[in-house]
């Protein structure tokens, strides 16, 4: 019965734990808003909250993309069980990032907002990334997976352009010090490069979907 035990541990311990960990960044922001000194938001809380939500969105996207390579390197198949939650956390933080920008940073000034989206390439990139993630979040249920079949895989490959756009969005707003966005870009290039390598190694017989998108059962 060890398999059942492992499944139970996954469902009742590991998953809730990862879920709570995923909420830590936003909990930390609330602690800052409640003036808890260790979590201080500094002199410019709007910027701090905005940046924190954005960077965690990007981190969760990259962690989500790391699940499949990690599974193959470690051989630990159960890692896949966390992928949907991690992807939804990415969507959660990126949505909050956008809503915060909309309601607080821009003060819901639609004219300025539309101008920003159209005229500022980094905002255009970030906004497009969010739009690409919406259908992925909407079809993240088991039912949608079953109903869509192979189309689900193809649709969920949108996570690649979304992450590329997310890294671009980060890079384009840095004034001069590109070291941090460079690290994120290198992680992304590694994760995509690994997929490309595996795909070539396997030959085209199996089709590109196998390593580019999660396998559907």
């Amino acid at each position, binding site marked *: 019965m060890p398999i059942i035990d492992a499944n139970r541990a996954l469902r009742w311990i590991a998953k809730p734990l990862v879920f709570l960990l995923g909420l830590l960044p936003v909990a930390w922001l609330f602690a800052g808003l409640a003036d808890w000194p260790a979590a201080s938001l500094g002199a410019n809380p709007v910027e701090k909250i905005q940046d924190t939500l954005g960077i965690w969105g990007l981190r969760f996207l990259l962690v989500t993309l790391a699940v499949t390579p990690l599974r193959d390197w470690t051989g630990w198949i159960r890692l896949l069980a966390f992928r949907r939650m991690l992807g939804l956390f990415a969507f959660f933080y990126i949505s909050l990032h956008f809503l915060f920008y909309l309601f607080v940073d821009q003060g819901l000034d639609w004219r300025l907002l539309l101008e920003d989206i159209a005229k500022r390439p980094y905002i255009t990139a970030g906004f497009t990334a969010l739009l690409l993630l919406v259908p992925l979040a909407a079809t993240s249920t088991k039912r949608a997976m079953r109903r869509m079949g192979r189309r689900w895989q193809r649709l969920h490959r949108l996570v690649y352009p979304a992450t590329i756009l997310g890294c671009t969005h980060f890079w384009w707003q840095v*004034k001069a010090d590109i070291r941090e966005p460079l690290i994120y870009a290198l992680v992304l290039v590694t994760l995509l490069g690994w997929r490309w390598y595996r795909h070539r190694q396997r030959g085209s017989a199996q089709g590109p979907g196998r390593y580019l998108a999660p396998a559907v059962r």
Partner: protein
Amino acid sequence: MSSNTKIRPSEITPESVYRGRREFLAGLAGLGAAAALSPPALAEQVMSVALIERLQYQRNARYSTAEAANSLADITGYNNFYEFGTGKDDPARHARSLRPRPWSVVVDGECELKGRYALEDLLKPHALEERIYRLRCVEAWSMVIPWIGFPLGELVKRFKPTSRAKYVEFTTLMDPKQMPGQRFAVLDWPYVEGLRMDEAMHPLAILAVGLYGQALPNQNGAPLRLVVPWKYGFKSIKSIVRIRFTERMPATSWALSAPREYGFYANVNPEVDHPRWSQKRERRIGSGSLLSRQPTQKFNGYAPEVADLYTGMDLARNF
């Protein structure tokens, strides 16, 4: 306080040092080693440090805004000073490695009285004033800061610039040991800024040596910095070691780094956006409400005083 006048400015203890000294003394006391120093001696030391820290100055009401000044914590905790790192809190954390005393400034180029001047000789003839200025960063945030300083034009005149002097170029200290951020080529160090001669002579342009009545904290550009309130903050170069008069427009750091985004003039202007973001509004740091962005004013609200400097100039081209 009259004895203050005899103290040379370079003897003024920077805040980081006296803070450190206090921490050290407190540490001694805490360890029970206070017996080595009798309590009165300890108190005296702390007192004298606090006394010489104060600068002598008069408020210049004419050139001061009535807007509420930012807190010392905001002004010293949220800085762009890439020589100490590119994060807003990096300067506050890393600037203690800067040694602002002793300090000297090289004056050269198109002027008669070239030379290397000790900071105190540079400052001696000038009466210090407090000026509460708005500061608008090119990143669309702003603060209100009570600077202590004196008009740059008065200092410029002393060195007798020649008729060929059309610009003034300023250079920041270059020393990666004191300024760890210079170990990374984020910008082409040392930092260089400049003004046209008429801008430098304008009474609103000042050299600052303090804020909130005390010597400049390291992270704010100790011991000597420029403040040009109608231009974006990056024009107001910090920790100046060289002032050079030139015939040609100086090549300034940000304009070299990204010529499409930062120009030589860098006048605050809501009508000319940064290529990547809007300059129409700004977030006033420390304004309490999260929802407040206020409209940015042309020349940062100093248009009545400085707009004449730019008549006939296309400010969208000369951004």
